[in-house]
């Protein structure tokens, strides 16, 4: 019965749902929205390593998402026109930027950490906006292509169609979730969680908490860059808009709405709900931001653990942010989870 248990694992349910989703979505339209959901899901699950697992409230991760998009375009325009190279380059570039900013950020935590991430995202926004000879400024960096995939030089798979790009993003989503799941359930993940619970205690246990926070920042930056590159290819362009602080709330909301603070898969659900809501509300009224703002207030007041947290779904492992206290002194489940 092991297979049945595997089949009921949320990871496989998610993979199965996204695998068959096009059958239904193709009929009603909205394939590009579905692709967008998967891209934001990659971004949000990666971001949750930092927010939910390490407990560092970054409010400027649009920085990496937007920069990843620009890097993808810049590599295609000025280096090598290719899909793999531009995606890998974006990931590498974003993790380097995360590493540099990490020198400023990794010694901070809590509100001060958040304050600095907001300031840095705005710095990058202005650079992207003003440096128009490189980034295209207000008009954005256009002409980002989806080149055919070359597999070991043997096959060439075109991904310029909607359906083929859907399954390309799907494959990356699957790989990303598996990798992130492994990270969370590795000794590294346990240390990150320990830092979130009580950084001082983790330090006294002998962990170089600064370095772990730095690594966590780099991991989340890397996946944000990946998502950004995929997004640039979806839109055939890169824009400064996602870097602005007024868009910083998007990924945080995806994590929160779905229940990412209590569940690894929360951000995937959150991304789907968020993008569907935005699409529906925007067609009904032009005042999406009023709805968005009030939704945030509502979620914080009445549903702080998100949908999966409220339904108490899959809280098998750990409660990641204690809603009532600043930090919870309990270390429940810590020891059995591959702690070194």
């Amino acid at each position, binding site marked *: 019965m092991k297979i049945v248990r595997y089949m009921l694992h949320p990871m496989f349910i998610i993979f199965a749902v996204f695998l068959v989703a096009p059958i239904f979505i193709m009929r009603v339209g909205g394939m590009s929205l579905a692709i967008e959901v998967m891209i934001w899901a990659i971004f949000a699950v990666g971001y949750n390593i930092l927010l939910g697992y390490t407990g560092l409230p970054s409010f400027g991760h649009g920085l990496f998402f937007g920069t990843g998009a620009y890097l993808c375009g810049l590599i295609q325009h000025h280096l090598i026109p290719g899909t793999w190279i531009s995606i890998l380059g974006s990931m590498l570039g974003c993790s380097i930027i995360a590493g540099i900013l990490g020198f400023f950020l990794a010694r901070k935590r809590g509100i001060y950490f958040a304050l600095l991430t907001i300031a*840095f995202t705005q710095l990058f926004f202005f650079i992207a906006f003003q440096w128009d000879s490189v980034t295209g400024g207000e008009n954005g960096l256009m002409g980002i292509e989806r080149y055919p995939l070359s597999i070991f030089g043997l096959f060439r798979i075109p991904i310029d169609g909607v359906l083929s790009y859907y399954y390309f993003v799907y494959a990356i989503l699957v790989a990303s979730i598996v990798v992130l799941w492994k990270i969370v359930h590795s000794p590294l993940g346990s240390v990150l969680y320990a830092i979130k619970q009580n950084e001082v205690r983790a330090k006294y246990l002998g962990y170089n908490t600064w370095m772990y926070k730095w690594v966590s920042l780099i991991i989340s930056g890397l996946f944000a860059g990946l998502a950004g590159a995929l997004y640039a290819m979806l839109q055939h362009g890169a824009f400064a808009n996602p870097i602005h602080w007024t868009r910083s709330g998007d990924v945080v909301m995806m994590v929160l709405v779905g229940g990412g603070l209590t569940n690894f898969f929360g951000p995937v659900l959150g991304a789907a709900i968020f993008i569907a809501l935005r699409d529906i509300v925007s067609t009904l009224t032009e005042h999406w*931001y009023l709805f968005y703002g009030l939704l*945030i207030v509502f979620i914080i007041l009445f549903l702080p653990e998100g949908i999966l947290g409220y339904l108490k779904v899959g809280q098998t492992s750990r409660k990641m942010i204690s809603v009532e206290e600043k930090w919870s002194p309990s270390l429940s489940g810590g020891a059995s989870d591959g702690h070194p």
Partner: protein
Amino acid sequence: MAEFLSQLFNGLVLGLLFGVMALGFMMILGVMEVINFAHGALFALGAYFALTLQKVLGYWLALLISPLIVGVVGLVIEWTAVRRVYQKDPLFGLLMTFGLAMALEEVIRIVWGKIGYSIAAPKFVAGPVAIGFLWYSKYRLFMALLSLILLTAVWLFLEKTPYGAIIKAGVSDSEMVLALGKDLKRLRTLVFGFGASLAGIAGVIAGPMWSLKPTMGTDVLMPSFVVVVIGGIGSFWGAVIGGLIVGLSKSMSVLVWPRLSDLMMYFIMAIVLLLRPRGIMGEKSLLEQ
């Protein structure tokens, strides 16, 4: 030379205004441990209320009443929403005020429309004045004067009144204030209202200089952030010095390379952080935990 001097004055005027904004922002940050994203929206509300009130009541009454209304808005926000997130994870406070900021900006768009308004400066400070060989806007000098009066008033309030002492204590350790038997709940509500009306009055003052548009709040919020990071959390003089640095960096970089004007303050912030991680006047505070 004339251009240099006029940019210098512009920077000082802007800096004093940022100082007023940042002080309210910092008090809320210190006492409540909440990053108030809605501070910019409250600033914009101040300007828009003044726009409407001026037509009926004239300039002086609008200058007085508009910040009071914004203060009441602040009290209502604190009372209904923000107070639920104290002592929770800092992320919640951050998101709460972020949501409020988004909603308030959209409310402004619904009530006053998307288009910009320009407010005329009141008659007695309209037009330029000669300072030596330089013709300078009378209204900007008037702004500087008002900001100085406000900063002095806040300083006197913080340093010379018992309530100011409680607020200062609250900024450095709000739970200790509770332990000493002060009503922390009321203190927080009042500080939020006070900070909101400071933002509101800054909005009223800035109205005639910038044109009024719904995004004016989001535009002015970032300088307040940077001022607090540069100046250091919890220090009155930090906010004033940080404000002047940001104001001057914005205006002086126009002389060198206009494109730098929005970026300069972030570079200064990065340098300050490298040399003094807590900001110029910052001390170790509970926020770092």
